[in-house]
């Protein structure tokens, strides 16, 4: 050795140096593979920094690889056979140094072959499968290799937003918001990871007959036309569950909340009608239909501020109403009520509301290829195009959604779905297992055998006239998700309503029944158009208009003295003031400036 020092870092801390890094790294790795040291230890040599990093800490992302030695995978055919017979399992491979986990740092030292045929002498590891370039969830969608990667990423996102059977004990659970699809189906086209993870036990979509066709402009720009009869038969139908919780809190001084129908004397009483659905114990009964503004859990709490003279009338009458009310825009049926106690002996109530969500205009759907769409028309089946065999498609998807987005997997799934339905067998769509050409050929054969066109095209007949369309139209079966974004949860209107206390401007957001913001750019548009009065209406009349009295002498703000019935300026005592319309926000600004001992004055002009 030339005596060159290579420093060794253990979890980032220098612990010493060695002179032969290659040998050192090799020894550590062999020790790990033979089980002498933990398999969670990773070692990496960086030739740029000439340092060795040993990592044993937590939080590293690690991935398993097959070890390759002398150009051959350690997973021999014999071992592979034994694996298949289930004589040995994955941890056997791990224990015996056939598989090892690499972290990001050690991976830099590895040369990984993607399959056995591409192993060279320099190869150190072998990838288990080609699909490993996608993550687990990306591999759940079929034909991932035929889609643009951006679309594949979107597809994974939509999968997260899909409704399905998320848990089989959903009716025992009190999740704060969940959706359960009525008739979840296992997809006709699955992938190996999909089967391996057994996702179909919690399926979250339905196999729908999709025709790539326009329909009177109702499916332009990612809009969808869905067959009304299909929806009536249960397509996309789901149940929305929402849980409300409350507990009897204890306060210092021995006071506590009480579940009960609040007496009319309590502070913030909402009127008899609001509590009409409560039973005697102050909690709503199951199967009671509820609407916005209905009280679900009646509760009284002690007043927020203790007054000095608590008279003989007792605390009870002074109680504050702290009931749980159904939020604006929500309705449904009480599904279940849970009454329990926490370990601290606090009584807790959970009320689960159930509400039916039948697909309606504005609800969102997506296929497994990042192709989302919004339901724009529930078409009557008799008006929709039908095939020679009398099938009316469930969904009409605009053909223009496909070419610009490069989601050929969608087309492939559609044709495969059709083949699957015709042959009565579940087909495999795992990425990289077959070439697209071979797949098309296979599906084409099934289609031709069943008497259909090789490419999946069919003659459609106009439902309104009965005449065949000139063009052949691509019809197939595709797995569709129903996503949990629904208009009924988002829709909100307001003409007049609440304002904020500080600024007197309208509130913002659906939860507060707010208005829509007329923002800076909208303002600019009106200025640019020169519409000065419309602008004033938006910014003042429809917002925070206030009339203030301005003193003509000193420019300060005055008030109307209701006792003397005169206007007064507290600064100079003048009694003839001018009533000026300004925005309340500006008044607040002037007030705040004054609070800092600066006197802003307003000069008036006629």
């Amino acid at each position, binding site marked *: 050795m030339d005596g060159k020092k290579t420093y060794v870092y253990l979890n980032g801390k220098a612990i010493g140096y060695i002179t032969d890094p290659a040998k050192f790294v090799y020894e550590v790795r062999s020790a790990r593979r033979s089980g002498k040291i933990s398999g969670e230890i990773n070692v990496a040599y960086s030739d740029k920094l000439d340092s060795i990093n040993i990592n044993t800490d937590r939080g590293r992302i690690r991935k398993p690889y097959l070890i390759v030695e002398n150009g051959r995978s350690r997973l021999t055919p014999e071992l592979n056979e034994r694996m298949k017979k289930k004589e040995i399992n994955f941890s056997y491979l791990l224990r015996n140094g056939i598989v090892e986990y690499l972290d990001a740092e050690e991976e830099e030292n590895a040369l990984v072959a993607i399959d056995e045929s591409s192993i060279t002498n320099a190869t150190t590891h072998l990838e288990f499968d080609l699909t490993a370039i996608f993550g687990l969830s990306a591999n759940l969608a079929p034909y991932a290799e035929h889609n643009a990667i951006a679309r594949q990423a979107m597809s994974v996102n939509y999968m997260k937003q899909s409704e399905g059977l998320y848990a089989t004990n959903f009716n025992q659970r009190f999740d704060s918001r969940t959706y359960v699809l009525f008739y979840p189906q296992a997809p006709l086209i699955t992938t190996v990871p999909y089967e391996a993870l057994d996702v179909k036990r919690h399926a979250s979509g339905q196999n729908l007959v999709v025709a790539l066709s326009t329909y009177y402009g109702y499916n332009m720009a990612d809009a969808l036309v869905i067959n009304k009869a299909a929806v009536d038969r249960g397509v996309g139908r789901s149940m929305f569950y929402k849980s409300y919780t409350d507990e009897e809190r204890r306060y210092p001084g021995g006071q506590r909340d009480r579940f009960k129908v609040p007496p009319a004397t309590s502070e913030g009483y909402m009127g008899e009608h609001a509590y009409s659905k409560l039973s005697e114990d102050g909690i709503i009964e199951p199967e009671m239909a509820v609407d916005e503004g209905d009280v679900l859990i009646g509760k009284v709490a002690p007043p927020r501020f203790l007054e000095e003279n608590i008279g003989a009338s007792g605390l009870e009458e002074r109680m504050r109403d702290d009931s749980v009310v159904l939020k604006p825009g929500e309705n449904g049926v009480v599904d279940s009520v849970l009454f329990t106690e926490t370990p601290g002996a606090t009584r807790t109530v959970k009320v689960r509301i159930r509400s039916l969500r039948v697909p309606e205009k504005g609800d969102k759907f997506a296929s497994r290829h990042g192709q989302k769409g919004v339901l724009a028309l529930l078409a009557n089946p008799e008006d929709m195009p039908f095939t020679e065999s009398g099938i009316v498609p469930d969904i009409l998807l605009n053909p223009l959604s496909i070419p610009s987005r490069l989601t050929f997997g969608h087309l492939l799934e559609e044709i495969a779905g059709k083949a699957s339905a015709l042959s009565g067998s579940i087909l495999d769509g795992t990425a990289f297992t077959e070439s697209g050409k071979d797949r098309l050929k296979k599906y084409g054969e099934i289609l031709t055998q069943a008497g259909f066109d090789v490419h999946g095209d069919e003659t459609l007949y106009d439902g309104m006239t009965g005449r065949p369309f000139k063009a052949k139209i691509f019809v197939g079966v595709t797995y569709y998700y129903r996503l949990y974004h629904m208009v009924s949860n988002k829709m909100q209107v307001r003409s007049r309503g609440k304002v904020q206390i500080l600024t007197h401007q309208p509130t913002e957001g659906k939860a507060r029944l707010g208005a829509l913001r007329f923002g800076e750019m909208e303002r*600019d548009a009106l*200025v*640019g158009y020169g519409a*000065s*009065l419309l602008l004033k209406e938006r910014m003042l009349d429809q917002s925070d*208009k206030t009339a203030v009295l301005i003193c003509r002498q000193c420019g300060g703000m005055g008030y109307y003295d209701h006792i003397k019935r005169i206007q007064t300026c507290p600064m100079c005592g003048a009694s003839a003031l001018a009533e000026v319309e300004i925005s309340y926000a*500006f008044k607040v*600004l002037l007030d705040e400036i004054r609070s800092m001992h600066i006197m802003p004055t307003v000069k008036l002009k006629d």
Partner: protein
Amino acid sequence: MAQNKDKNTIEYGEPVGMLAAQSLGEPGTQMILRAFHFAGIESTIATSGLPRIVELVDARKKPETPITFIYLTGEYKRSVGKAEQTLKKVSEVRMGIVVRRILENFSKGIIKLVLDAQVLKANELTPGQLAQKVAKKLDARTKVDKDGNILVKLKTKKLTEVRSTSVKLMKDVVQGVEGAGKAVLQKDPKTGEFYIIAAGSNIGGIMDIEGVDKSKIYTNDVFAMCRQFGIEAARNTLVRELDTTLREQKINVDKRHLMLIADAMTYSGTIKGVGRHGLSGQKQSVFAKAAYEETVKHLVNAAAFSEVDYMRGVTENILVGKQIPLGTGSVHLAIKKEDMQKVKPKK
């Protein structure tokens, strides 16, 4: 024609500034952040797209990539030899480019400049010439050794001084105009005439060189144009640069919007950016300034100096809730109260 004139005339009260801002701002959102394009030569790739627009509108003192177009006169634009003569005089060559390595002998106070023979040859320089230049510059004795390297004998032996002289020496211009940057010769494919593109903007220095057409020299450095030709030229440069940058990305903005922006930036005689330190910061109204940026600073100043807001702008009027003095809000009844008596209709 009269009709056409009316159609193209902006009416009284039209908010032209807002329109100009929107017309430039909206296409800006569609621009590719850093567009790659390979027109021209490697060394003269100019900043383009949004970064360039931002650079122009902010009135940065130095553009990221200054470029000067030097057109030649008579003889010079026709013959390659003549044009190359001018090119040689323009193109900036620094000592650091010709020197491959510096060896400093601190104990003797000698700097040895190891020259790059290839670069020397390409620039038609000899070690002797360089040695003379260095001697003149540093007022020191220089010598060319047998390998064609330059030895400089300094008067000082102090370590820091030797080092700082050698560092400074590297930045010295040995040939061409300082600040002209590397220049290349170009041939106009249409006319067959030669012109020079330089990656610098010292047009003052370049103009004095023989063969340069003083009336046609152009740089994308707005401030350099302003220094040399005055504010009107700077204004025109701004318009031209904005226009070409937008055109490159196939974005159509009417030139009159750009002209208005350029006018607003230059009307005071100096170039001002549109931001906090430029146009927006010099608004008259306290409220308008406070609504834009640095609210507290403007309010404190207004309070300290007892400023008056005359409520003439847009922002301040929206703030208090008045009709804005633009568009339909710019017209008023121009009749006095007393005069109203006179026009009272008879019973």
